């Protein structure tokens, strides 16, 4: 570790390239916390996205017409408005207006913090996309499979739970994996509501150390790595879940 920090200190002293996070303890700690927070945002948003996606897909495929309309309205609303505007609407329009984001008089945690709103906004926005992906997965499950399940005495819920969804999830997995990447990429909007994730911390560092280009490269590499890991994980999941005889 010492040699790395020495290398970057030398780099700064000899060339002026100031990668301060590699040799200044405070910067390093701060940035590391930011990266951890960014990963957390991405992780919980992906989970939230899957939950919302399943709900939306179930609504869109349900036999009850008003429920279907509600699902379609949800998807169209969240797909056709900007994530940033949704986030600001949630944080300020709903959160601040209802006093949800206020800290208590003794500094108690707010009812819903900005971080939680970011996760909520990302889950809802990408949940709409995920729901659509799942829906096309469900539609791709052949009708005969469903009939076979019914003839084995599965009721509607059990058919969905044990036959349709597991297959549909596998079919939709590449599309969902794509959404995972998008979530990681979009997690940087947390910057706007001052959640100290990687980009926000980087901007703090570059405004104190005035090393904008260096920190930007670091941020870019950080996100690239996160996305690369996300796509590796989904690829791994795909191969783990692959149904023999399905797909390529």
């Amino acid at each position, binding site marked *: 570790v010492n040699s790395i920090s020495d290398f970057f200190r030398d780099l700064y002293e000899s060339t002026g390239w100031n990668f301060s996070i590699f040799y200044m303890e405070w910067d390093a700690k701060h940035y590391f916390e930011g990266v951890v927070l960014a990963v957390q945002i991405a992780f919980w948003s992906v989970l939230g996205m899957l939950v919302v996606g399943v709900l939306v897909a179930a609504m869109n495929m349900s036999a009850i017409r008003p429920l279907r309309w509600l699902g379609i309205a949800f998807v169209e609303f969240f797909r*056709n408005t900007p994530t940033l505007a949704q986030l600001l609407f949630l944080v300020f329009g709903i959160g601040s207006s209802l006093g949800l984001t206020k800290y208590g008089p003794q500094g108690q945690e707010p009812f819903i913090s900005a971080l939680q709103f970011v996760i909520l906004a990302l889950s809802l926005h990408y949940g709409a996309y995920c729901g659509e992906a799942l829906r096309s997965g469900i539609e791709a499950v052949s009708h005969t499979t469903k009939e076979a399940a019914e003839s084995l005495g599965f009721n509607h819920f059990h058919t969905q739970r044990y036959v349709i969804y597991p297959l549909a999830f596998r079919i939709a997995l590449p599309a969902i994996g794509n959404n995972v990447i998008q979530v990681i990429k*979009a997690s*940087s909007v947390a910057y706007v509501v001052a959640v100290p994730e990687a980009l926000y911390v980087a901007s703090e560092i570059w405004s104190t150390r005035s090393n904008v280009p260096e920190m930007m490269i670091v941020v870019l590499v950080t996100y690239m790595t996160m996305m690369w890991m996300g796509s590796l994980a989904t690829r791994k999941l795909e191969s783990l879940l692959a149904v023999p005889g399905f797909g390529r």
Partner: protein
Amino acid sequence: LAEIFDPAAWKALFPWVPLIFSGFLLNILISIVSMSAGMLMGALLGIVQSSTFAWVRFIASCVSLLLRNSPWLVILFFAMYFIPVNIVMLGNYIFVPVWMKAAIALSLPAAGFFSEIVRGGIAFIPRTQWEAAESLGFGFWRTISFIILPQALRRMIPPTINLYCAIALGTSLATVVGAQESISTVQIILNTVRAPGIMFTSYGFILYLFFLYIFPISLASRRMERALDRQQGGKG
């Protein structure tokens, strides 16, 4: 809760609606400029990605991947810090407004995604077309521009429209770097006007505006996609 649906908020917001509209026009302007620039660059990048040289293909696909996978906010920051305020050209100082920087920034991911659309469109054309062109003595660029792209074009229209929708949604990020677009105007309004429930109303209005603009476009693209699918099904 009653505060949120206070009609007073609507009354307070009403005189500011033209300002929000002018901000939204800037959103549309940014989206059009960045989409056109992105399509130009992306078409080139996409064609290069279908090059016959493996190393050219590799470099081009790396560039495309980099453009597609960078968070847009980070690209915007890059543009803000690295594009100079004034560009010197032939001894004249040309002022680069913030919205133009935002448009340039957004054109980069647009180029990345459009290159992928072009590549997909080219890959969709059967190999025999290339061989036929080659046997007629067409070179790479002439095959691409006179034989492959004209056929691929129809396939490329729906995803291109979808990309435009994504870019138009992305223009809202320009507020973060200081372009005076619709969300910035709302923030100005919120700094001047004090009324209960105004935040809910004004941010809701932004969502409404974007929806009103994007939804018809995405509907049209979906309709076109279905029509294309039906045609393809009829043929095969």
